[in-house]
């Protein structure tokens, strides 16, 4: 990790795909941060006189609504801009929750071994048996829809890969002589894990985190699409798409934009993740 910021920037600049990823992610972040400034309308304001309008380049458009309006006359562009907030919050918070749980579990399993390891690894195996979407949907149905629950679900469904990775890395690191030396000089377990082992495995964890983040964006969108995401008054891309589906025959445009936003966001995160993997840890197989 002894690569300065300039070095990182240089490597990113040289990678075309990494650059595209960065730009896409930055656009989403900026949209989320400045949604109130950028959005031409209130995302919840209904205008039934101007409902189901097409984008301004199409025939049935309405002046002022650049990307058209939905079945309640709400401005689609404004809803897309505000929708990026949910995506971003869930993606970031979900990744952090999943990452912390996964890293802690992986540390416990790898460092203490024996029955701790056996239990945690069986948990991992069992969780991997459940289809991702189905597990998320089941928990969402039981817990009910709220932003906190969606973040929690994102964490629950994504901790497994960190745990596996961290455990594997720790198993090989803890046998190294320098760890032995710290133990001999009286370093506690916590000290060894936090100061001496974790810094060594931070790069693969970051790589997994970006790739998991892409999955979380898709999961949040799927939950919203199925009607079990965040509460109904918050605009999200997934829900916009599920509402647009009812007007697929008359207003196909309405279906295109939310999906495009999801795809481009996932693409951006994935491209950035691919570049990070090549940059930080080319040997990592994920």
């Amino acid at each position, binding site marked *: 990790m002894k690569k300065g910021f300039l070095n990182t920037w240089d490597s990113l600049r040289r990678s075309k795909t990494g650059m595209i990823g960065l730009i896409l992610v930055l656009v989403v972040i900026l949209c989320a941060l400045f949604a109130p400034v950028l959005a031409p309308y209130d995302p919840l304001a209904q205008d039934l006189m101007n409902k189901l309008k097409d984008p301004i380049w199409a025939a049935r458009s309405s002046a002022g609504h650049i990307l058209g309006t939905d079945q309640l006359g709400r401005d689609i562009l404004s809803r897309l801009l505000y929708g990026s907030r949910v995506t971003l919050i869930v993606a970031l918070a979900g990744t952090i929750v999943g990452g912390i749980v996964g890293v802690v579990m992986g540390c416990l399993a790898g460092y203490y071994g024996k029955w701790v390891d056996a239990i945690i690894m*069986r*948990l991992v*195996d*069992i*969780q991997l*048996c*459940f*289809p*991702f*979407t*189905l*597990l998320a*949907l*089941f*928990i969402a*149905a*039981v*817990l*009910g829809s709220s932003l906190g629950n969606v973040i929690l679900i994102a964490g629950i469904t994504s901790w497994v890969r960190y745990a596996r990775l961290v455990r594997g890395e720790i198993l090989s690191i803890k046998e190294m002589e320098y760890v032995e030396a710290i133990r001999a000089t009286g370093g506690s377990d916590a000290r060894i894990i936090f100061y001496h082992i974790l810094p060594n495995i931070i790069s693969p964890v970051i790589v997994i985190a970006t790739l998991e983040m*892409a999955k979380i964006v*898709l999961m949040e*969108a*799927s939950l919203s*699409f*199925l*009607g*079990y995401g965040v509460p109904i008054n918050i605009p999200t891309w*997934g829900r916009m*798409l*599920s509402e*647009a*589906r009812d007007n*697929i*025959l008359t207003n*196909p445009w309405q*279906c*295109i934009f*939310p*999906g495009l936003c*999801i*795809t481009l966001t*996932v*693409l951006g995160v*994935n*491209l950035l993740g691919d570049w990070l993997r090549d940059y930080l840890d080319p040997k990592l197989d994920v």
Partner: protein
Amino acid sequence: MGKYLLKRLGQSVIAIFGITVVVFVILHLTGNPVELMVSPTTPKEQMEILSEQMGFNDPLPEQYIRFLKGVLTGDFGTSYYYNEPALSVVLERAPATLSLACAALLICVLLGVPAGILSAVKRNKLSDAIIRVLALLGQCMPAFWLGIMLIILFAVKLHWLPTGGADEGLRSIILPAFTLGLFSAATICRLLRSNMIEVLGKEYIDVCRAKGLPARKIITKHALKNAMSSIITMLGMQFASLIGGSVITETVFGWPGVGRLVVQSITSSDFAVVECIVFLMAVVFVVINFVVDVLYCVINPRVRLQ
């Protein structure tokens, strides 16, 4: 090999046991599952009566043992929406989901394998670049959006295929199968490409070239065989994830399978059916993984010897 298989079998049994625990725990996450099954306005006394009748007032371990006994005898309770045993409601829809998953797997192989090979052989050429971009997009597009876009194009605009349902036989399975299979096809393509590139760089391939074998023969007979071995494991895993992915695809296309049933059952709070589907899908995953491991053992002698 016998010892290995026995160990895997033991692991699978433990996994299935663990699955029952997880399903049970999730269902009890909010305390009383009755709250999930009735409307929020139901009076307290009625809920109390229902809890008593359905046994949710008993101690949790007792409830779990009853649940486990039910699972072992195929009794997941009664679906109050269909007024039938939950298991038979689910099994009735299973063929539709299985045929969709098989069709999707077929599409995944037909698209993913040739694309992966072509991409590796034409490495860094134009066709490679195009395939890689398409594969990446295939992995980034949410299935529900892809499905809707396909409906708009092929059903609404061109009128070639039906918008949904399963009434038109082979014609109605094409769009859902493609929607479901594209993600897996992209995954297989990317994996096969990197495997092929690795194999094509090996010395024995140089030997084949040096002794003048035609390129086609080197690729199909010598390189592909080695590159495919991990693809077979991957295909098994993909099949399992296709069954899981059916939840979304079936909802988009109104396909009358288990995936759509689970969404409908959640909406109508029919948790006996939900429980049954979640359990069965996880078990199918365990079984498929076991079968794939056995197959891998049979195909690859190196594993057999270890």
